[in-house]
C-alpha cells in the first residue's frame, strides 16, 4: 500500500521544490550497506581503547594497579589520572549564572561518583586485546554512602557528591512574575499535586565512537567522532586537552542517531586524543551498549510540585511550580541550562496565566550526568502544564478541551513574551486544537466513553497542546543565560563550472535528511533541481565555522543560512549573465537553463555562466571572480512551534494493561520543507514520547547500577500514527519555518497520561506517574478504591 497523502492537513501544493515530498538523496548508500559510520573507519596503524569503569556509585580509591594490564599481549599504553600532572576536566559550556559547575575529570582521581565513570584506559592492538587487558586492572575501592534521587540529595544529612561543596545544589532558577499567594487566595479554586518526569536513556542505535589520529610530523590531529556538532566538538576537545584548535580537524561522517547526547564531549574523546598524541598512532574507541547506558548522558529526571488556582470556569489565575532536577554526578555540557531555562521559561505553555512563580533546583547525585534528550526541557515543561490543565478540568468537572480554549493566548496577544520569559512568535491555538479534535472524533469518543463506562470498560482521551522553542540563538540571549555557544549557522553555496552547486552547511544530519531538504531550499533560489546540488556537512576543514544540529534548529537557522547564501549566489549569476550578454540585468530573461533577452538572439546557458565566473576571463571587478557566497545566518529570535495531540486509550481494569487505540498529532511548525521527511520526524518523536509515557525508565537500580535493558519501543508496540499540520508561518526567519524534530517527544507523554487519568478519574485515580506500567495502573486503582466519583 502507498503511504497516506503527505499533504494531509493544510499544506498547499508547492510552487517550487520547497514543500514537495522529495525522496531522500542520501538513501542510496545507506540502503546498500555503504554508510560510513565512525566504527567503519579503520586507519593504518590503528590501535584500540578500552576503559576501566567504576562498579560503585560512590567510592574512594588510592591505587589503580595497571602492571598486569601493561604486560598483557598487544598492549601499548595504560593511562590513569596519575599520568597527568594537570588532570584535564570536561567542562560544561552552558553554565547558568550563579551555578556551581563541576566538570568530569577525564579519568577519575581518587574518587568515583557514578557507576560507569572511567578510571583507566588500556590501548592495544585490537579491541579484544584492550578489553582483555582492561579486565586485569585492579582498583582498591572503598565504597561510600551514595544518593541517587534528587529529593534525597536535598537534605542536610545527604551524602555530598562533591566534597568541596556545602550541599548538592548545582544551580537554582526562579523565573516568573510573582504574586502567586495573592492571586491564589483570591481565586475560588485551588489544587496541589506532584508528578515525576522520569529519567530516560536516549539510546541511539549507534553508540558513541571516536577515532583520534595525531600525526607527530605535522602536529595535526584528526578526530572522527559520531557527533551532532562537529565544530563545537573541535572547540570542546581543544579546550579540554589544550590542543591548538587550528590544528585539530573533526570529521563526523554518517551518524547513527543523536537525540541530544552526541552533542557533548565526554571523557573518552579527550582520552583517545591524548593517547594518540603519546603513541603517534590512531586510537579508536567504540562505545559498547553497556557503556552507553551509564556514561552517555541521560535525559529528563524532574520531580515537580504544582500549586494552581483558577476560577470555577477553569480560567487559570495563578501557578506555582517547584522542581527538583537530578543532573547526575557532574555538570554535563548543557546540564545546568536544560532543566532550568528550557523548563522554567515554558511551563506556562500556550496559556495566559496572571501570576506565575517557578523554583527549580538542580541537584548533584551519584548517577550518570543528565543533559539534553529530544525536547530537552520542553517536554518537562509541556508535561507539567498540560497535566495541570487536565487536573483543573477534572476537579472542576469541566471538559479539558474547553478549559484549554478558555485559557489560550489569542491571536491578538501574539507575538508575546510570557512572564516566565518564553517568546511566542506565532500561534493559532483554537484552530489547531479544533483540527485535532475533529480528526480524533472527540465528541463521538466522549459518547463512546460514557457507554463503555456503563459496561464497566475504561476508555480515556487525552489532549496535549504543547508549545516549545526552536532555533537557538540569537547569541546575545545565549550570553545572558550563560550558554557559551554560537546562535548562528553557516552555509556556503558554491557553483561549479558545470552548472551544479555545492552547499556546505554547519548543521549536521544524524538522520534528519539535510542533504535533501537543504538541496530543496537551495534549488528554489538557484533555479536548478535538487539532484544537481551536493550538500556537504560534518568536516571542519571544508565547512565554514558552524554550530550544529540540536534544538530543532537545522531548518529554521541552518536552512535559512542556505536560503540567504543561495539567494546571493543567484543574484550574482543574474548580474554576470546580463554582463556577458551585454544587457541590463532588468532585461535578462531566464527560461529553464537558458539566459537571453528580447533585445537580441544571443543566449547563454546556466552552465556557461558558471563556467565564465570561474575562469574569470570576462568578469567585471564589482562582481568578482567565481560564484560563491557564505552566510553566517544569525536569527533575531527563536520560534515557538506548537501542536495539538490527542491520545485515545483503553485500560484493562483487571490487568492494568493500557492499549493505545489512536494517536492524532496536528503540529504547526510553520513552513514545511519536505512533508515526507517532516512526517518521519514527527513519527520518531512520537515513538520516543510514547516510550517515555508507557515503558521507559532510566533510573538506576537501588545499588546505583544502570538499567541495562531500558524498554525501547519495538515494532509491534506502537499504533499507526495519524499526523497532519496546520501552517502558521514564523516571521523569525526567511523560510517561515519553526522546527519540528522534537514535537512528538514533547506532545506524547502528556497526551497519553492525560488519557489514562481521564479513563480512571471516575474510579478515583487522581495521579499516575510515567511509565504507565500495568503494575502502576493497578496500584493506582487499588489505592483509589472507594474514592470513585
Amino acid at each position, binding site marked *: *500500500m*502507498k*503511504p497516506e497523502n503527505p499533504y494531509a492537513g493544510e499544506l498547499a501544493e508547492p510552487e517550487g521544490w520547497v514543500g514537495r515530498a522529495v*525522496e*531522500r538523496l542520501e*538513501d*542510496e548508500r*545507506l*540502503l*546498500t*550497506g*555503504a*554508510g560510513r*559510520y565512525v*566504527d*567503519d573507519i*579503520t586507519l593504518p596503524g590503528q590501535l584500540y581503547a578500552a576503559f576501566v569503569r567504576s562498579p560503585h556509585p560512590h567510592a574512594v580509591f588510592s591505587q589503580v594497579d595497571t602492571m598486569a594490564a601493561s*604486560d*598483557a*599481549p*598487544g*598492549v*601499548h599504553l595504560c593511562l590513569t589520572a596519575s599520568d597527568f600532572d594537570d588532570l584535564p576536566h570536561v567542562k560544561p559550556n552552558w553554565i547558568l549564572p550563579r551555578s556551581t559547575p563541576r566538570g568530569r575529570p577525564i579519568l577519575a582521581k581518587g574518587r568515583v561518583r557514578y557507576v560507569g565513570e572511567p578510571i583507566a584506559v588500556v590501548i592495544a592492538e*585490537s*579491541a*579484544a*586485546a584492550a578489553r582483555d587487558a582492561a579486565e586485569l586492572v585492579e582498583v582498591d575501592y572503598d565504597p561510600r554512602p551514595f544518593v541517587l534521587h534528587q529529593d534525597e540529595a536535598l537534605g542536610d544529612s545527604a551524602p555530598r557528591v562533591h566534597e568541596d561543596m556545602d550541599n548538592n545544589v548545582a544551580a537554582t532558577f526562579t523565573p516568573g512574575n510573582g504574586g502567586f499567594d495573592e492571586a491564589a487566595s483570591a481565586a475560588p479554586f485551588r489544587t496541589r499535586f506532584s508528578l515525576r518526569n522520569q529519567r530516560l536513556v536516549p*539510546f541511539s*542505535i*549507534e*553508540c558513541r565512537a571516536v577515532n583520534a589520529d595525531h600525526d607527530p610530523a605535522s602536529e595535526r590531529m584528526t578526530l572522527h567522532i559520531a557527533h551532532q556538532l562537529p565544530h563545537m566538538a573541535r572547540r570542546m576537545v581543544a579546550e579540554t586537552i589544550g590542543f591548538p584548535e587550528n590544528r585539530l580537524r573533526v570529521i563526523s561522517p*554518517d551518524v*547513527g*542517531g*543523536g*537525540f541530544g547526547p552526541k552533542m557533548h564531549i565526554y571523557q573518552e574523546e579527550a582520552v583517545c586524543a591524548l593517547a594518540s598524541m603519546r603513541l603517534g598512532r590512531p586510537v579508536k574507541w*567504540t562505545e559498547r*551498549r553497556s557503556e552507553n547506558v551509564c556514561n552517555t548522558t541521560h535525559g529528563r529526571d524532574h520531580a515537580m510540585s504544582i500549586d494552581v488556582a483558577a476560577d470555577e470556569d477553569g480560567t487559570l489565575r495563578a501557578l506555582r511550580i517547584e522542581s527538583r532536577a537530578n543532573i547526575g554526578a557532574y555538570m554535563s555540557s548543557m546540564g545546568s541550562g536544560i532543566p532550568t531555562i528550557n523548563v522554567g521559561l515554558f511551563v506556562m505553555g500556550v496559556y495566559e496565566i496572571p501570576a506565575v512563580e517557578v523554583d527549580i533546583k538542580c541537584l548533584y547525585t551519584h548517577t550518570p550526568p543528565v543533559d539534553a534528550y529530544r525536547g530537552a526541557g520542553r517536554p518537562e515543561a509541556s508535561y507539567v502544564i498540560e497535566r495541570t490543565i487536565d487536573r483543573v478540568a477534572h476537579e472542576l468537572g469541566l471538559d479539558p478541551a474547553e478549559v484549554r480554549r478558555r485559557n489560550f493566548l489569542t491571536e491578538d496577544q501574539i507575538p508575546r513574551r510570557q512572564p516566565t520569559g518564553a517568546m511566542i512568535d506565532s500561534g493559532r491555538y483554537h484552530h489547531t486544537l479544533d483540527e485535532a479534535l475533529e480528526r480524533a472524533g472527540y465528541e463521538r469518543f466522549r459518547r463512546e466513553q460514557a457507554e463503555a463506562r456503563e459496561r464497566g470498560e475504561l476508555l480515556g482521551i487525552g489532549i496535549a497542546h504543547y508549545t516549545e522553542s526552536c532555533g537557538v540563538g540569537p547569541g546575545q540571549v545565549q550570553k545572558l543565560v550563560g550558554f557559551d555557544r554560537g546562535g548562528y549557522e553557516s552555509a556556503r553555496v558554491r557553483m561549479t563550472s558545470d552548472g551544479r552547486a555545492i552547499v556546505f552547511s554547519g548543521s549536521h544530519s*544524524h*538522520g*534528519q*535528511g539535510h542533504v535533501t531538504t537543504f538541496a530543496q531550499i537551495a534549488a528554489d533560489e538557484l533555479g536548478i533541481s535538487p539532484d544537481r546540488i551536493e550538500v556537504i556537512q560534518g568536516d571542519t576543514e571544508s565547512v565554514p565555522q558552524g554550530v550544529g544540529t540540536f534544538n530543532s534548529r537545522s531548518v529554521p537557522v541552518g536552512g535559512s543560512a542556505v536560503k540567504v547564501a543561495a539567494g546571493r549566489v543567484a543574484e550574482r549569476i543574474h548580474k554576470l549573465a546580463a554582463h556577458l550578454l551585454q544587457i541590463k540585468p532588468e532585461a535578462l530573461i531566464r527560461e529553464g537553463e537558458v539566459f537571453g533577452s528580447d533585445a537580441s538572439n544571443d543566449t547563454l546557458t546556466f552552465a556557461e555562466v558558471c563556467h565564465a565566473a570561474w575562469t574569470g576571463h570576462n568578469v567585471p571587478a564589482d562582481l568578482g571572480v567565481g560564484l560563491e557566497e557564505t552566510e553566517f545566518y544569525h536569527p533575531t529570535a527563536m520560534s515557538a512551534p506548537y501542536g495539538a495531540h490527542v491520545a485515545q486509550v483503553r485500560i484493562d481494569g483487571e490487568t492494568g494493561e493500557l492499549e493505545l487505540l489512536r494517536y492524532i498529532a496536528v503540529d504547526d511548525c510553520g513552513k514545511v520543507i519536505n512533508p*515526507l*521527511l517532516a*512526517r*518521519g520526524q514527527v*513519527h*520518531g*518523536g*512520537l*515513538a*520516543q514520547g510514547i516510550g517515555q509515557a508507557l515503558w521507559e525508565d532510566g533510573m538506576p537500580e537501588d545499588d546505583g547500577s544502570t538499567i541495562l535493558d531500558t524498554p525501547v*519501543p*519495538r*515494532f*509491534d508496540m*506502537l499504533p*499507526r*500514527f495519524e499526523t497532519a499540520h496546520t501552517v502558521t508561518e514564523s516571521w523569525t526567519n526567511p523560510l517561515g519555518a519553526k522546527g519540528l524534530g522534537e514535537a*512528538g517527544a514533547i506532545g506524547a507523554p502528556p497526551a497519553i497520561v492525560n488519557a489514562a487519568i481521564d479513563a480512571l478519574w471516575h474510579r478515583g485515580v487522581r495521579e499516575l506517574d510515567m511509565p504507565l506500567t500495568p503494575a502502576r495502573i493497578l496500584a493506582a486503582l487499588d489505592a483509589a478504591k472507594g474514592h470513585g466519583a
Partner: protein
Amino acid sequence: MNAAPFSSTTKVKLTIDGHERSADLEPRDLLVIALREKYGATAPHIGCASGRCGACTVLLDGEPVKACMMLGVQAEGRSITTAAGLAGTRIGAALQAAFKACHGLQCGYCTPGMLAAAHGLLERNPAPSEDEVRQALRGNLCRCTGYQHILDAVLLAAESLREAQAA
C-alpha cells in the same frame, strides 16, 4: 610492549555477498565482529552485541540471523548476504526501492538489519498483513522512524513484488 599474538585462530571460509572469502578467526569472535573486522564487511552494524537490537541481521543461507548471536567459526562454508548484496536479489531490490519511496530510514544505522529481516519475511510470506510485518520485525530496533514508514515500505515492497509476479 608484548607483541605476542592472541589466542589460537582458525581459518574460516565464507561466501559474503557472492564472493568467497577466508580469514583467521579467534574462536570467540562473534560473526558480526568477524564480518566487520576480519572480512571488512561493514554493512551489518553493532548496536548491542547481545541479540537485542538486530542492527547486525544478515541472511545466512537465505535466512535472517542476528550476527551477534553466533560465532564466526560456526558460519564456516556458509553463504552470507549483507545489505551490500541485497540489491542482487529480487526481494532485496524491491525493499530498497520501497524504503526510499516511503522514507523508511533516517540515520540508516538499523537499516541493513531491518532489510535483512524484512527479506526473510517476504521470502516466507509474500502478502503479509500489517500485524505480520510488525511481528516479524519486532527483533529489530529503530529509534528514528517510529516504524510506521518501515511498515509502509515493507507492505509496498510486497505489493510491488506481487504485481511483478502477476505481470
